[in-house]
């Protein structure tokens, strides 16, 4: 068979991917059906929110950001942390890591989609999305940190789509990927991952009117917690992939990520301690938000159980990681990962966004508890993200294990040491 041109092969590749996205075992169908149902409930709730207004949420003029932005912030961290494996894999040329790096990049893509969805559902006027685009709209760059965030997140998405797309398509064609087409982007993605979460942190830390956020330590804290959630989720994800597919996943990647997790949880806790010391030792009215969060203020203590739960989850996860080190029982590792993931979710969501608004800038205590609409939409977006991740893995892994190949691939010189 003659070698095919890209122009002829690519559309066929896309079509095959499209078909494969809907083809699987009964477990796959049940999983996707459940996620679709949840996602549709969320979509419907959002449609009602657009028509009736954001009054369907429980946000107010005092607490003007809530569950959506909390989850947005968390998902940016997850996207940044997902690419954490890239550093050991490429910077230290760790061959065993290379197999699993792509899983991290696919998680990053799914996370960024979730971020973008969380922003869209939080907008009062999603019909005016085009106003925020450069050239066609009016882009307040470089002054507004939100514009930096728009560029950073979309750029990150494109970089990861390119890298994964290129590598998967090359493998599909049986070609050895050309380093020039992906290696620079890989190194770019390392710096870019750090910058997406730095920029997101700067959104908050640049606001003088919100002393709870106005700290130089916020961006480092964001990165530390991102590098907790990324590895934690991937450790669990790799085990799931290992169980459900025959994609080769060695022990080394999981071990490397566990080492990383042990360090980043400690750094995250240390930074939290540093912030708490500064606030509680100095005292004064800038302490009000932290006091509300951990001890309650003026008769309000809605967030106190959440704050302490998050602290115990993070510390407990660290303890379990040491138990795992001793006993080598994966059960402890997995529980630690789940605990750290939830602990950071609380810390970044309830523990960061809400206290920034409570007390308000005029020191009024108006509290917030998400409404049913907000929960539906949030869960719907998480379901959509999981769907994207599932489909991405389902498409990528068979290609990478050469189960799915272009018909013409057999005719072309295959390289035994094809790298990813």
């Amino acid at each position: 068979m003659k070698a095919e041109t890209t122009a002829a092969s690519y559309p066929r590749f896309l079509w095959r991917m499209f078909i494969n996205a809907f083809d699987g075992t009964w477990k796959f169908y049940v999983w996707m059906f459940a996620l679709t149902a949840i996602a549709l409930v969320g979509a419907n709730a959002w449609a009602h929110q657009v028509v009736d207004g954001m009054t369907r949420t429980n946000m107010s003029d005092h607490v003007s950001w809530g569950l959506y932005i909390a989850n947005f912030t968390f998902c940016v961290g997850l996207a940044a942390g997902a690419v954490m494996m890239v550093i050991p894999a490429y910077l230290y040329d760790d061959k065993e890591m290379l197999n699993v790096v792509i899983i991290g990049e696919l998680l990053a893509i799914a996370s960024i989609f979730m971020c973008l969805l969380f922003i869209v559902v939080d907008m009062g006027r999603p019909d005016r999305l085009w106003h925020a685009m450069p050239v066609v709209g009016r882009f307040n760059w470089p002054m507004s940190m939100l514009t930096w965030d728009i560029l950073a997140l979309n750029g990150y998405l494109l970089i990861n789509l390119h890298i994964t797309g290129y590598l998967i398509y090359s493998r599909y064609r049986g070609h050895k990927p050309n380093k020039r087409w992906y290696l620079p982007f890989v190194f770019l993605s390392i710096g870019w991952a750090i910058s997406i979460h730095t920029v997101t942190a700067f959104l908050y830390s640049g606001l003088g009117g919100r002393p709870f956020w106005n700290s130089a330590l916020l961006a480092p804290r964001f990165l530390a917690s991102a590098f907790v959630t990324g590895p934690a989720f991937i450790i669990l994800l790799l085990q799931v992939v290992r169980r459900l597919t025959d994609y080769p996943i060695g022990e080394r990647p999981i071990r490397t990520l566990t080492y990383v997790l042990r360090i980043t949880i400690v750094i995250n806790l240390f930074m939290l301690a540093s912030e708490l010391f500064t606030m509680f030792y100095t005292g004064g009215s800038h302490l009000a938000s932290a006091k509300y969060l951990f001890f309650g203020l003026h008769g309000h203590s809605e967030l106190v159980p959440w704050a302490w739960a998050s602290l115990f989850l993070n510390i407990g996860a660290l303890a379990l990681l040491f138990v795992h080190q001793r006993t080598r029982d994966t059960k402890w590792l997995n529980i630690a990962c789940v605990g750290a993931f939830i602990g950071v979710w609380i810390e970044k969501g309830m523990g960061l966004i809400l206290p920034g608004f409570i007390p308000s800038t005029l020191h009024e205590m108006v509290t917030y508890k998400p409404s049913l609409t907000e929960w539906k939409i949030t869960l719907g977006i998480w379901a959509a993200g999981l769907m994207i991740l599932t489909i991405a893995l389902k498409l990528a892994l068979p290609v990478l294990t050469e189960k799915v190949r272009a018909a013409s691939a057999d005719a072309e010189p295959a390289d035994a040491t094809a790298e990813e």
Partner: protein
Amino acid sequence: MKRRVALKVVGATLGAAAFARALAPLAQLRDDANMDEFLQKNYRELTEEQVGDVIARLQADARKKYGRDDITIKDPHAIEGVEFGYALNLSMCIGCRRCAEACHKENNHDRKTNNSYIRVLEMKQGSMDMGQGNADYDHPVPQKGKYYMPVQCQQCDNAPCVKVCPVQATWKEPDGVVVVDYNWCIGCRYCMAACPYHARRFNWKKPEIPADEINPNQGLLSNRVRPQGVVEKCTFCLHRTRNGQLPACLEACPTGARVFGNLLDPKSDIRWVLENKRVFVLKEELGTRPRFFYFFDV
């Protein structure tokens, strides 16, 4: 194999139908949809002629919606040689909230929520700590041992809200007023997070005002009835002040605690206050440089 494909096609069709059903409520927006409004650019990029077209459209819509022929929307420009300043006498304010009520009526605020751009804090005498203040009082005023501090948009010279808006829907006009283009705002509420003075309000739903309570003298950038999903704030009643009139809150104040005028006129009342009273601004350390000043008589 064929059955599998058939099942998949049925499944995909059902999925598409379910998705359409899920988003069905969006169809209710069809009546409000307007191509001209959708494509409308930022106010500052529009020529005067285009602004005229926008005003004509908005005015016609408002007249139809409220059944009132007297609704007029104007777009007064800044006045040469005028920069507005506002001062508030904390020795004179009795906390009666008539300013908040006047703002509520003048600016066509939603009736059910008693929304107003002015928030009056009952403060403890001897303390500037707003944490010991209370906006939700309902007893005869003035109370012993308390003083009253109304807070509204400070029209900052170095406004954090202007800095953070991703689409430049809010900006500082030449006469000092920070305005919002309600047809450009995307409702992200970043400005509300950035404002240190709780000056901004969001339209969590469409504001509801009975037709006979509508203030028909409306400004494009100030008190026309705002759409759902956008941010709004005090504009120093620019539809009045740019016509030389006093803002509604000042007219309603029974004690005369409010002083307004042209900062560039050396003979104005506001200049006299700034030069002869001990004047301060809120949260000065944030560097926002407000145009709203507070003073005590003694």
